[in-house]
């Protein structure tokens, strides 16, 4: 899943979209429930021009709406630069809107608006059968209200936060819209897509939990964000570090992998070009992403090993090749963020408890808006081999110091040679 593909909030993206052929059932759903759905416009204050567009839907008669956290994130952190506006399917706009609660972990936000005759949708905590027809409503690419028919396909297998898999075409701008059954019960909130009709929903049960939390008249939304991200780190600690990393054997090396089946792991051969060596890239990640930046999603934890060996390259050439792999940072591994400091790195040679020596680089950057949370990039290379070695990369975003250190410790201790 690519980060860019998950951007549902329309940020100056204007692509052509072929209209979905209408169906009688879709038409009925749209007619009955679209009046509960609003376009969310995050406006740049000085120009009153939309900067981000998403979708929200009404959940009670008091004018409470649900949307995605990533739709309103700019507003949460820069209220002086942005304001929010809702636009109904009839074109009427509502300016009296406030963000009252956010959950960055599940990518949800609660809005309160002064709506004329709000028509709430009912949240359904259940999990429909796989194959059930569901309908997603929203405002793709800042267009008019749209309904997309698709099928429900259960829970994502590699999700820390419990995301639903929806087979249907979600498009940028539909973020925060409802996906509902034909009778109007909402099963999930539109959140992301990988293209090719692979789309994702936040379960309605998560939304209900957020709605049940007490609301402050003067909410500290940044504190909400921080506490929800800290909760993610608690879950990571429970799931990964408390259990301890598992080990997998690849080409003579024993390498760490996240425990259980919670992570999606894949392997592929390295494209070695003309050079005479073998390489395997082994990668594990979660299906969940964190919206630490308003326009870019970050993986929670990624583990990647590049196992290399060659019996034909000379020691010096292999060392050069190995060194290049170690020092190359690939696209997307470290990107600049307006919301974080630059990375600070420290390099050194370390040895683990088994006496195996590594070159280790750890790079951290701070998120000033979220004290105590950092992005971490770690790269290790096993030292001492003349014709084989492993370059490992570990990335954690929005991590605490303790989880970051636990990652480094466990990464080193669970790496070794197969005897």
């Amino acid at each position: 899943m690519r980060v860019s593909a998950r951007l549902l909030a329309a940020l100056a993206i204007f692509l052509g979209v072929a209209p979905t052929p209408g169906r009688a059932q879709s038409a009925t759903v749209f007619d009955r429930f679209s009046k509960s759905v609003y376009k969310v416009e995050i406006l740049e204050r000085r120009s009153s021009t939309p900067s981000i567009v998403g979708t929200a839907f009404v959940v009670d008669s008091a004018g409470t709406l649900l949307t995605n956290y990533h739709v309103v994130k700019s507003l949460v952190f820069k209220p002086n630069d942005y304001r929010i506006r809702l636009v109904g399917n009839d074109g009427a706009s509502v300016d009296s809107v406030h963000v009252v609660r956010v959950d960055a972990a599940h990518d949800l936000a609660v809005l309160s608006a002064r709506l004329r005759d709000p028509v709430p949708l009912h949240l359904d905590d259940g999990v429909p059968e796989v194959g059930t027809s569901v309908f997603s409503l929203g405002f793709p690419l800042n267009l008019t209200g749209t309904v997309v028919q698709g099928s429900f396909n259960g829970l994502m297998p590699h999700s820390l936060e419990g995301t639903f898999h929806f087979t249907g075409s979600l498009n940028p701008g539909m973020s925060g819209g409802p996906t509902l059954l034909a009778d109007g019960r909402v099963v999930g909130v539109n959140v992301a897509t990988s293209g090719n009709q692979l789309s994702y929903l936040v379960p309605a049960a998560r939304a209900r939990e957020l709605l049940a939390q007490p609301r402050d008249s003067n909410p500290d939304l940044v504190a909400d964000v921080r506490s929800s991200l800290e909760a993610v780190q608690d879950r990571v600690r429970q799931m990964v570090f408390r259990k301890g990393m598992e080990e997998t054997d690849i080409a003579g090396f024993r390498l760490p992998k996240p425990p259980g089946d919670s992570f999606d792991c894949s392997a592929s051969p390295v494209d070695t070009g003309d050079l005479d060596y073998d390489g395997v890239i082994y990668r594990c990640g979660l299906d969940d992403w964190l919206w630490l930046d308003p326009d870019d999603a970050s993986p929670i934890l990624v583990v990647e090993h590049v196992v290399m060996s060659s019996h034909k390259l000379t020691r010096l050439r292999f060392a050069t090749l190995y060194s290049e792999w170690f020092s190359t940072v690939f696209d997307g591994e470290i990107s600049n963020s307006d919301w974080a400091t630059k990375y600070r790195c420290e390099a050194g040679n370390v040895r683990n408890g088994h006496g195996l020596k590594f070159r280790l680089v750890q790079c951290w950057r701070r998120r000033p808006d979220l004290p105590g949370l950092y992005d971490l990039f770690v790269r290790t290379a096993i030292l001492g081999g003349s014709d084989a070695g492993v370059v490992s990369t570990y990335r954690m975003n929005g991590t605490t110091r303790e989880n970051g250190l636990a990652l480094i410790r466990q990464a080193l201790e669970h790496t070794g040679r197969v005897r």
Partner: protein
Amino acid sequence: MIVAEILGPDGAMLSRVKLDGTCVVGSDRSGGLVLVDPTVAPRHLELLEGPGEGTVTLRRLADDGETRVGSLIVGAEAEITLPATVSVGAVAVRLSSAAATGPAEVPPPSPILSRPATAWGLCLVTVILAATKALLTTDKAHPWHVASATGVAVVLLLPLWAGGWAIGNRLFGYKNRFHAHLSAISIWVLVASCIDLVTTGATEIVHTDTTRVLGSGLDLLLLAWLLYLHIRVASRWRFRTNAIIAGAVVLVLGSLTFLAADADTDADVPVNAALGALTALPAAVYVTRPADGVAASTDKILHELNGMKAKRSVKRAPEGP
């Protein structure tokens, strides 16, 4: 108490310092706020707290140094209200009162400025070692020898070391710290042999067993220092092959140094060669620390990050007077 934040060209804060009462701002290191920039005069301006609360007075000291507050050029003296951004030459400094900004954090050392400082620190230790050796191995009754040996150390070593750094930095840039160390070590080895020859020549005038023992001990100390420098370099080298090459270079240079400097008897030759060979030791084992020590590096990084702000790409509008 005034807080001065030195801003980079993109408006990001580079460092923050607290200033007490009156201080001189300029490129001269004796000033209270040192701004190393060609557009800043050695004694550019004087900064005085007051006269009112939350105000500061800027007094021009240099005829050729311009100071601006927004679009206003400071003449002889100007009183400004805090917070304000002042352009000292081309360097932007944001001034605010400590009460408004809360306790100033300890600024992280600027990576560019801290490296020459490290070099000077290494240089100072080397000079002290060389001077100590000269002091102890030369007859106390001949202070001229002590003075001359120390003087040679200072006169020869300091500029050459600094030159090594300057050349290394010119060629490779400050970002590549190990090149700078390498050039400094190479020059140190060459110069150490000259100093050793001078000081050995001095000791031969009044050579006693005691001074000879002391001399050997200090040779070991010098060697240990060389080893330490080498470890610093070798630990930054990524892989064994590179580290061994580095070790071999130091081995050859080290052996030549000791052979040339101390080979006053035939018996010293193998001893000194062996001592020189020891310098290659770190290359063979290349330095590693236990993984438990990683947390210390992490905390060092996190401490540095505490003084940093997010790298916003949005530029702020220029402030008026």
